[in-house]
């Protein structure tokens, strides 16, 4: 069983890191995984995306045309990946930066005001993990708890002060996607 996830947004929104976190979690849970980034000449502000494939067997191609899920952090990413998600797949949209609803009715789609939620926790840069939390509610390929554990294990020392806020972001995203009441 193979699950493909595309995470896309502006450079600087942490899409590559979000994908790496999923990849670390898959590794820590003895799954096969590939993380494949877009890489461009610009260091900041351009579009960025990565493809994460998680599987219980050897992975061939590290990229696919039709992923099982897309996490889109901005409007260009929604425009690009909404048509590509496999039928019945998952689409997580950052409604903080996207002013339209998805057109497709055959997807499990959810709008998450990730920037605002991140700001509530303390930093809008936490939006990426809010989105990951929401994704894993709809696509339980890994658990939020497992992601939290892997984050704890792999976070660089100089970022350790952000650990709890990141874990909170994952939980909040998950709860939002589950439709649970979330206090501001």
């Amino acid at each position: 069983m193979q699950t493909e996830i595309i995470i896309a947004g502006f450079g600087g929104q942490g899409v590559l890191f979000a994908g790496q976190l999923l990849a670390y979690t898959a590794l820590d849970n003895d799954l096969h995984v590939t993380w494949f980034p877009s890489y461009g000449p610009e260091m900041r502000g351009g579009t960025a995306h990565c493809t994460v494939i998680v599987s219980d067997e050897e992975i061939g191609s590290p990229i696919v045309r039709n992923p099982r899920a897309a996490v889109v952090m901005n409007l260009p990413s929604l425009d690009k990946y909404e048509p590509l998600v496999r039928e019945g797949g998952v689409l997580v949209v950052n409604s903080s930066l996207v002013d339209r609803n998805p057109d497709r009715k055959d997807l499990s789609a959810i709008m998450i005001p990730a920037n605002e939620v991140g700001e509530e926790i303390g930093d809008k840069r936490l939006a990426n993990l809010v989105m990951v939390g929401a994704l894993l509610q709809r696509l339980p390929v890994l658990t939020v708890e497992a992601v939290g554990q892997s984050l704890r294990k792999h976070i660089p020392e100089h970022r350790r002060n952000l650990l709890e806020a990141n874990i909170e972001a994952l939980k909040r995203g998950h709860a939002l996607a589950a439709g649970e009441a979330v206090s501001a």
Partner: protein
Amino acid sequence: MAKELLKGNIAFAEAAIRAGCEAYFGYPITPQTEALEHMSKRMPELGRVFLQAESEVAAINMVYGAASAGVRVMTSSSSPGVSLMMEGLSYIVGSEVPVVLVDIMRGGPGLGNIAPSQGDYNQIVKGGGHGDYRPIVLAPATVQELIDLTVEAFDLAEKYRYIVVVLADGSMGQIMEPAELPPMKPVRKPEERPAWALTGAKGRDPNVITSIYIDPAVEEEFNLKLKAKQERIEANEVRYKEIALEEAEIAIVAFGTAGRVAQSAVKAAREEGIRVGLLRPISLYPYPYHRVRELASKVKAMLVVEMNGGQMVEDVRLAVEGRVPVHFYGRMGGVVPLPEEVLDEIRKVHSGLAVPA
């Protein structure tokens, strides 16, 4: 050692360090620069040599010098940079010093782009620099293979006193996958440097590292020696991987990233009932001609998939010698073919088989 999540560029650099690489000379170029950056931090930590050269031309000649002094040495670059290194490669072969080069290919010709490509197959596999030689060329398709082949490259380079190129595309440099690094091997002690190396002529006749043989008869003698070396390499160093070739009607031949994309397509096609398998050459020189030829007598058609306009396909056709049709599917410009595209090609080839001749 346990598996770690490793980026290709970091993985091969660290693998080289663990293989006892004593010196690295390089120049930044996307998409392999993380390797140079990794070396810039790790090599001095370990008391080894890292130097950022003023150009790829200088880098490969520094490598040439360090190799002449008898240490394990490498460089890495990407297509335009490797073009600049071709002069040095030729001298390295002409002087019989062991060198490892990792080429993380990108789109071309010219400045091209920084996306993954296999457009330099002909350049690297057929020689590259001037003169009569072919480097040993190893093509990984996973981060683990990139690690293992980099380590092996050092051994092969020394075994044959030759240039070994690890040829991968940009996606192999940028991808992250779980992989295991080898244990750390110490660098060679100064007194363990090979007898032919430039170490100062203390108590022995001077050593000379040169590639000039001004007398044509002597040069030819050297050429014959190189040729004999290449024959040994061809006899002993062919490497490939086979997937689902049992009972196959169609054999795909693809290397590196194109190979693993094809692997996904083979799986999907098998699920549709199409009997297709994959031969993934790992050594591009020496090329597995023999195995391709054997397959040609077993399958009804072949499909070559490459991230170029059709370069390795010529070697497949040389081996097949017209026994079965050899189809080609390629993407260029830094576009990585999708498994779905390759599956479509497999279906086309398969439906062609059904048509009576």
